[in-house]
C-alpha cells in the first residue's frame, strides 16, 4: 500500500487504517465525534432525566417500599418480637411472663422516644384497641416495679444513686471518656458538645444480661431524647426489675471483681426475700386488653421487618393464625372500588370518544376561521379551574338545579319526580366526561388533520357509499388518534379523585378517594401505598395488553 489519497476517503496509513485529516485513525476519530454528540444529547436531556428521577421515579420507589415495610414494629419492640418467637400463638394461652417483661421494657423506651403511640397506631390498623392500650400503658410504666426499687434502695441507699449504676454497668473506657467530657464541660460550658453515648461493660453484660441491656438502653434514651446524663438520673423502676430477674435467675457473682461487687453480692443474697413482682399482673391491672390472646397473635403476625399486611388489606384480606382469609362481608370495600374505578374509567373513555370524535372531525374539516373558534371552545374548559367546572356541574345537575328546573318548566317531568343526576355515578360520569373531553379531542384532531381529504373523494369516486368510505378508509386512518386519546383519558380518569369526591356521592367515588383518605386523614400510609401500587400495576397490565392487541406504535399524538 502506498501513502496516497484515495477518491473520497482520507489518507491511508501504513497499516491500512484510514486516517482522518488530523492524522488519527478515522474509526477512532469518528467514534470520538459520535461520543461527543451523544454526550451533548445526553446533557440536553439531563435536566429532564434528573427531574423525572427525583420527582417521579424516587417517589414511586418510596411508595412501593412503604407498602411492604413494617420496620416500626421490630425496631420499636425488639425485645418483645424476640420473646414472641418462642411463644406458640396457636396454643390459645397468653404469652409467658418474659414476653410481658419485654413488652414493658420496649414500651418504656418507646414512650421516652415518643414512639409508643406510633407503633400502637400501626398495630391498631390490624387490631382495634391497641392504640389506646399502648397509650394508656405508656403513662403508667414509670410506676411498674416500684416495690422492687424500694426494696433495693431499702437494702442499701446506694442503689438509689445514679453514680452506682453508671459505675456498675458503664464500660471503663466510656467512664473515662465521660469524665473527660465532664471536665471539658466545666471549662467550656455548652461548647463541649453532647455527652459521649453510653456503653455497657461487656463483662457485666455477660454476668447480668438483662440489666446491662436495659440499663444501657435507658441511659442512651435519656441522653438522646431528653439531653440528660445517666450520671444524674436514677434508672426507671423497670431497670430494678431487670436486676431482680438477673439476680434471682442465679447470676454467678463469685468471681466478679468489678466496681460495687460487694453491693451486688449483698443484693443477690437479699433478693429471695424481695416482694414477688409480676409485670404481667401489673400490666393486666392497667388494662385487661393485655389479656387478649388475639391481640398478641396480631403483634406476632406483624412483627417482621416486611409485611404483606397492607397488600392483603388492600385486597380485603387479612392474616389469621390459620392463614390468609377474606375480611368479614361488612368490611369489604377495596376490591369493589377497584372494579368500579376500572368500569367507570372505561365508561368515561367511551363517552369522551363518542362525544369527541365528531367534534374532532369538524375541527379537522371546517375552514380555518371556524375551526379556530371551535378549537377555542374545546380548549376553554382547560383554562378554567377544575373546581369551578365541577361546582358548575353541581349547579346544573342537582335536583333544584338548572336542568331539573328546565325539565319541570317545559313539563317533561313533574315537580316531585325530579331526576337525581348528581351525588351518584351519573354525576361522576357526566362531570368527568366533560373535564376529560379535550384530552380525547386534541389527539384525534391532530391525527385527523393529517388524513388527506382526497382519500375519501377517491373512495367515493370508486363507488363507495358515504358510510363505506368512512368506515373502510377514514376510520382506520384515525385509529392511532383514538388509541392516544383513549389511553390519555383512561389513565387520567383512573387516578382522579377531586371530581368524584365532590359529585360522586357514595356510588360514584373511586379508589383514589380512599387513597387520599388514608394519606391525609387516617395516616395509614402503608395501606395507601399498597392501594396505589395495585392501581399502578393494574394500569401497567392494561397498557401491556393494549400493546399486545393494538400495538403501542399505533398511537399517535399528532
Amino acid at each position, binding site marked *: 500500500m502506498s501513502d496516497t489519497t484515495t477518491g473520497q476517503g482520507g489518507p491511508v496509513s501504513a497499516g491500512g487504517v484510514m486516517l482522518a485529516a488530523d492524522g488519527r485513525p478515522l474509526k477512532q476519530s469518528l467514534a470520538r465525534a459520535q461520543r461527543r454528540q451523544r454526550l451533548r444529547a445526553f446533557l440536553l436531556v439531563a435536566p429532564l432525566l434528573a427531574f423525572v428521577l427525583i420527582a417521579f421515579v424516587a417517589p414511586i420507589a418510596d411508595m412501593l417500599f412503604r407498602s411492604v415495610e413494617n420496620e416500626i414494629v421490630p425496631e420499636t419492640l425488639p425485645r418483645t418480637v424476640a420473646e414472641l418467637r418462642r411463644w406458640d400463638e396457636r396454643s390459645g394461652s397468653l404469652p409467658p411472663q418474659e414476653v410481658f417483661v419485654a413488652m414493658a421494657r420496649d414500651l418504656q423506651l418507646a414512650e421516652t422516644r415518643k414512639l409508643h403511640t406510633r407503633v400502637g397506631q400501626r398495630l*391498631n390498623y390490624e387490631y382495634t*384497641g391497641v392504640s*389506646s392500650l399502648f397509650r394508656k400503658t405508656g403513662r403508667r410504666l414509670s410506676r411498674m416495679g416500684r416495690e422492687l426499687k424500694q426494696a433495693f434502695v431499702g437494702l442499701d441507699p446506694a442503689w438509689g444513686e445514679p453514680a452506682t449504676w453508671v459505675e456498675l454497668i458503664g464500660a471503663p473506657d466510656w467512664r473515662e471518656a465521660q469524665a473527660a467530657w465532664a471536665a471539658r464541660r466545666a471549662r467550656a460550658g455548652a461548647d463541649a458538645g453532647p455527652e459521649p453515648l453510653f456503653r455497657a461493660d461487656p463483662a457485666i453484660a455477660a454476668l447480668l444480661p438483662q440489666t446491662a441491656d436495659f440499663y444501657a438502653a435507658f441511659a442512651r434514651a435519656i441522653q438522646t431524647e431528653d439531653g440528660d446524663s445517666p450520671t444524674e438520673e436514677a434508672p426507671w423502676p423497670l431497670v430494678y426489675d431487670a436486676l431482680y430477674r438477673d439476680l434471682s435467675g442465679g447470676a454467678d457473682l463469685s468471681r466478679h471483681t468489678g466496681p460495687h461487687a460487694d453491693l451486688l453480692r449483698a443484693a443477690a443474697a437479699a433478693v429471695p426475700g424481695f416482694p414477688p413482682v409480676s409485670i404481667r399482673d401489673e400490666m393486666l391491672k392497667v388494662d385487661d386488653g393485655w389479656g387478649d390472646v388475639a391481640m398478641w397473635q396480631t403483634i406476632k403476625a406483624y412483627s417482621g421487618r416486611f409485611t404483606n399486611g397492607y397488600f392483603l388489606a388492600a385486597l380485603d384480606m387479612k392474616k389469621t393464625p390459620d392463614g390468609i382469609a377474606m375480611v368479614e362481608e361488612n*368490611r369489604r370495600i377495596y376490591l369493589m372500588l377497584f372494579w368500579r374505578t376500572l368500569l367507570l374509567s372505561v365508561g368515561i373513555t367511551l363517552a369522551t370518544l363518542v362525544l369527541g370524535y365528531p367534534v374532532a372531525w369538524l375541527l379537522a374539516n371546517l375552514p380555518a376561521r371556524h375551526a379556530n373558534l371551535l378549537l377555542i371552545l374545546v380548549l376553554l374548559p382547560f383554562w378554567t379551574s377544575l373546581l369551578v367546572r365541577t361546582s358548575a356541574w353541581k349547579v346544573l345537575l342537582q335536583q333544584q338545579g338548572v336542568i331539573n328546573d328546565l325539565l319541570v318548566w317545559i313539563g317533561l317531568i313533574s315537580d316531585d319526580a325530579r331526576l337525581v343526576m348528581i351525588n351518584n355515578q351519573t354525576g361522576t360520569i357526566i362531570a368527568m366526561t366533560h373535564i376529560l373531553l379535550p384530552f380525547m379531542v386534541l389527539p384525534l384532531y391532530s391525527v385527523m388533520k393529517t388524513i388527506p381529504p382526497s382519500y375519501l373523494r377517491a373512495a367515493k369516486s370508486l363507488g363507495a357509499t358515504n358510510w363505506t368510505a368512512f368506515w373502510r378508509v377514514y376510520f382506520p386512518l384515525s385509529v392511532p388518534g383514538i388509541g392516544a386519546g383513549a389511553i390519555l383519558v383512561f389513565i387520567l380518569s383512573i387516578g382522579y379523585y377531586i371530581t368524584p369526591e365532590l359529585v360522586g356521592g357514595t356510588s360514584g367515588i373511586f379508589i383514589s378517594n*380512599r387513597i387520599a383518605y388514608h394519606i391525609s386523614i387516617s395516616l395509614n400510609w402503608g395501606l395507601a401505598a399498597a392501594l396505589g401500587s395495585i392501581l399502578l400495576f393494574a394500569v401497567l397490565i392494561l397498557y401491556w395488553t393494549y400493546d399486545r392487541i393494538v400495538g403501542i406504535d399505533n398511537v399517535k399524538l399528532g
Partner: protein
Amino acid sequence: MTPRKTAFAAMAGAGILAATAAMAQQMANTMTLVSWGGAYQNSQNQAYAIPYRAMHPEVEVVWDESSAEAVAKLRAMNEAGNITWDLVDVVAADAIRLCDEGLAMEIDHDEVLAPAPDGTPASEDFGELIVSDCFIPQIVFSTTFGYRTDVKEWGGKVPTSVCDVFDLKTFPGKRSLEKRPIGNLEWALICDGVPIEEVYDVLETEEGIKRAFAKLDTIRDQVIWWTAGAQTPQLLADGEVVIGSTYNGRLYAAIVEQKQPIAMLWDWQMFDLDGWIIPAGLPEDRLARVLDFVRFATDTQRLADQAKYISYGPARKSSAPLVPEHMKPHMPTDPANAKHTFLFNYEWWADYRDDLDARFQAWLAQ
C-alpha cells in the same frame, strides 16, 4: 430572603451592633400560622393577627390553610427535618396525636399563657379543655343540625329533637350528614333509645354497631353525604336538603350573614375543641416570636374578640362575659342551646376509627 435567613441576618446584625445587650431575646420577624381558611381563619386574623401586627409592625404574618392535613404534613416535615410552620390550628384529637408523637411542643400553660384579668392562672381559666400538654385551646365548636324553615310538606311543624332527622314521616325530604362514622353513629344510637353515657359501651359490641347502622339504614336513601363543612349550608340554601349537619359557625354565617331561611337545631350537638399547637423543634428566634404571639392571641380579651366575627365559644371561662350580647344566642355553649350535648370521645375514636370507618364505607357502598 427566607424567614430563617432574615432571622440569622437580624441576629448577626444585632450581634455586631450591640454585643453588650446580648441576652435580649431575638425574635424572628415572620411567622407562619396554619388554619382552616374561610370565615374561621378570617376571625382569627381580625381578632389576633391584625391587632398583633398593629403592635409589632415589623412582623410579617403568613397564613397557610392546611389544618385539615396538619398531622400528615407535620409528620412529613418532621421526616424531612424542616419545620416551616410556627403555629398550627388543629382540632383536639389531632393535638393529642401530635403531642403523643412528639411532633408538637409540650408547654407549661401557666407559664406560656396569660392569666385571666383577675389573676386566675391560665390552666384554671381553660380548665378541662386542656386535653393535652401541647394543646392551647381557643374555641369550643359543635357539629349540629340546621333545617329549612319553609318546607311545605312539614305542615308547619319544625324539628325540635335530633331524632327528627330520622323521622321521615313527619319531616320528609333529603338530609345531609358527614361522610364519616363519628357523630352519625352516636346520634343513631341516641335516637334508638340508648342513654348518652352508654353510647360508647354499646358501640363496642357487634350488636351495638349493627343497631346504629340499622338506624342509619332507615334514612340512607334520603342522605347526601358531605365531606367539607361548607357543603351543608350550600345544600340547605339551594333547597337540595331540608335538614343537615355541619359546624355551627357555618350555619351562623348562612343564617345571619346570608339571611337564608334556615334555623338551628341545637339538640344533641356534638362538641369539639379547636386550638393551637406549636410544632416541636422550632429554632429559638422563631419560638420566641411564636410564644410572644400566642400569649397575646389567647388572652381573655382576644378570645372574646374572636366571638365578634364567628359564633364559636371562647375556651376561657373569663372570656364568656366579654362576648358581645348579640352573639350570645348563637354560641353553642349558651345555656339555652346546650341542654343536650356530648363531647366526642377522643380516646375511644382513636381506637375504633380505623375499623368503624372501614365498616362505614362498606355500608355506604352497599
